[in-house]
């Protein structure tokens, strides 16, 4: 029987002797051998349609939030980067970079605060630029706290202190190009390259046009009552043309064309689209019916206009309850296409934007479920990808 481990002292003596005598390593050549190896670092291909970013807030250890890079076709983890303390992530629409908004303190839980927008090379996952922000909102991460213009030239960072504001970062120069004060309004829903819209506390929208280094703000009239039936922040925008479908707690969908002159269409009911009665709102808090709920609870496939919404059965004020089904709806016809039963309740829904789209759901255990969005069939599951998977980001979204 072989002695294990090889005595280090002997090995050392051997190697030193080799150096001294100049008779180098002949002992090795006679044995059956595996090649000696060198350490290297994987470099990824350019971003593909099915390579996604998955945000993990790590609620129990929020200083160690992270973003996973995942090959959704293989169900394979490709790498990860830090997204510290309620970090957020947005991707260049062409996949040339992704940007992580994060917040650190120099001594972990104490010391100097720094808010950062780190630009990553999507092939090396190396930081290209580590931009210091004037601030960012510290809030459980939601997509619309950090967004990007359609051409990828501007990143919008929502901030709350000392005032509600949006920092506009030029991605070419990595400079802050503008601060837009928006007291009473929050988040950003970008429309093309021209600007973005925020939701205001009174149920109206503020539209911000960006021109030549200045911001012009217009306001819509209030179109919903935030206390009776608020619209979810987690409502999807087709960034290319600014079409947005604001989904309310009760399940109303407000088709909205965002611009400097935002137009809000008549709302339709998700439940009615499925052949049910429209659900009541806060006035009838005990009524149990199917309702939208979760965290990043909806996603839109741009090309087809299919809207995916996490749904559960419950009373009003269960708007953060994870969905037991995903309902696929056609935003043009206001019709239900399919109800997809989930193996585990999911607080999030994501989709890719290609012609053979994948859908993503998660569960409490941090599993990522990967679905064929065209058929509604589950393809694979990545067990415990992370702790708290809050949303996915796909190419072009």
């Amino acid at each position, binding site marked *: 029987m072989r002695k294990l481990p090889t005595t280090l002292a002997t090995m050392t003596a051997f190697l030193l002797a080799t150096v001294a005598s100049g008779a180098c390593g002949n002992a090795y050549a006679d044995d059956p051998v595996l090649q000696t190896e060198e350490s290297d670092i994987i470099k990824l291909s350019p971003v593909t349609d099915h390579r996604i970013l998955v945000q993990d807030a790590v609620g129990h250890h929020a*200083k160690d939030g992270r973003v996973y890079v995942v090959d959704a076709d293989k169900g394979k983890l490709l790498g990860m980067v830090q997204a510290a303390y309620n970090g957020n992530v947005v991707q260049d629409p062409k996949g040339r970079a992704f940007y992580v908004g994060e917040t650190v303190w120099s001594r972990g839980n104490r010391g100097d605060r720094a808010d950062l927008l780190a630009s990553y090379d999507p092939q090396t996952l190396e930081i290209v630029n580590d931009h210091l922000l004037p601030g960012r909102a510290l809030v459980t991460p939601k997509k619309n706290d950090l967004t990007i213009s359609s051409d990828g030239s501007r990143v919008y960072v929502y901030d*709350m202190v000392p005032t509600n504001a949006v920092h506009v970062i030029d991605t070419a120069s990595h400079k802050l190009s503008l601060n837009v004060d928006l007291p009473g309004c929050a988040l950003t829903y970008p429309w093309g390259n021209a600007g973005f819209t925020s939701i205001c506390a009174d149920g109206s929208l503020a539209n911000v046009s960006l021109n030549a280094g200045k911001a012009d703000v217009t306001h819509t009239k209030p179109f919903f009552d935030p206390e009776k039936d608020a619209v979810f922040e987690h409502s999807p925008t087709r960034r290319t043309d600014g079409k947005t479908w604001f989904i309310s707690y009760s399940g109303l969908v407000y088709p909205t064309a965002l611009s400097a002159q935002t137009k809000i269409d008549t709302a339709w009911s998700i439940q009615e689209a499925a052949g049910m009665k429209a659900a009541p709102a806060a006035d009838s808090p005990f009524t149990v019916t199917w309702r939208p709920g979760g965290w990043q609870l909806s996603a839109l496939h741009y090309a087809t206009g299919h809207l995916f919404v996490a749904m559960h059965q419950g009373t009003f*004020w269960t*708007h*953060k309850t994870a969905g037991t089904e995903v309902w696929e709806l056609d935003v043009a016809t206001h019709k239900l296409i399919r109800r997809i039963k989930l193996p585990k309740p999911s607080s999030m829904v994501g989709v890719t934007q290609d012609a053979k789209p994948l859908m993503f759901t998660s569960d409490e255990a941090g599993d990522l479920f990967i679905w064929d969005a065209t058929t509604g069939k589950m393809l694979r599951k990545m067990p415990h990808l992370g702790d708290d998977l809050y949303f996915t980001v796909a190419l072009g979204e």
Partner: protein
Amino acid sequence: MTQSDPTSGREMRANPLDRVTERLIRHVAGHSSRRSLLGRLGAWATFGALVPVLPIERVSAATPAKAASLPKAPSPFAAKAQTTDPTVCNYWRYCAIDGFLCASCGGGIHSCPPGTRPSPTSWIGTCFNPGYGQSYLVAYRDCCGQDACSQPACLGTDGDQPSYRPQANNDIIWCFGTGALVYNCSTSVIVGNAS
């Protein structure tokens, strides 16, 4: 062991209602004139000083009303709420809480664990006490300075609104003004009746 330290200099001395009022003023201000200074969080301190302390009577001898005559619970959460164990998610005050209970993390219902500090700002919920048959305004004041206490989390969503309604939103890290903003746990502090 669980005595608060009156000489620590870190206790929250101002009457919490001042702060509620500040928040509400801010809320109004944000609406009435979106571009005015009143809309700024920085305005809290300034305007707080103008609002007198409301003389809430401390009726220590108050007895709960008889069960028969109590109003009905206004929400499914309230209908199942209990009033005895603040380390369980269905404790009545947790109708709109989100996070770790300070009562399970070394603090108390309205006390921060040692080594953390209560945020001077908070979101506000309206919770129904089934014992008194009465709803109260509850300030969910986060305790800050250590990362998540990591005991089982609770999520109450009665009246919880999105972050564009910050005063009623429980997603925000309510640690403004505490130095390090790292969130440890949440307390629920009674700040008034919701008549």
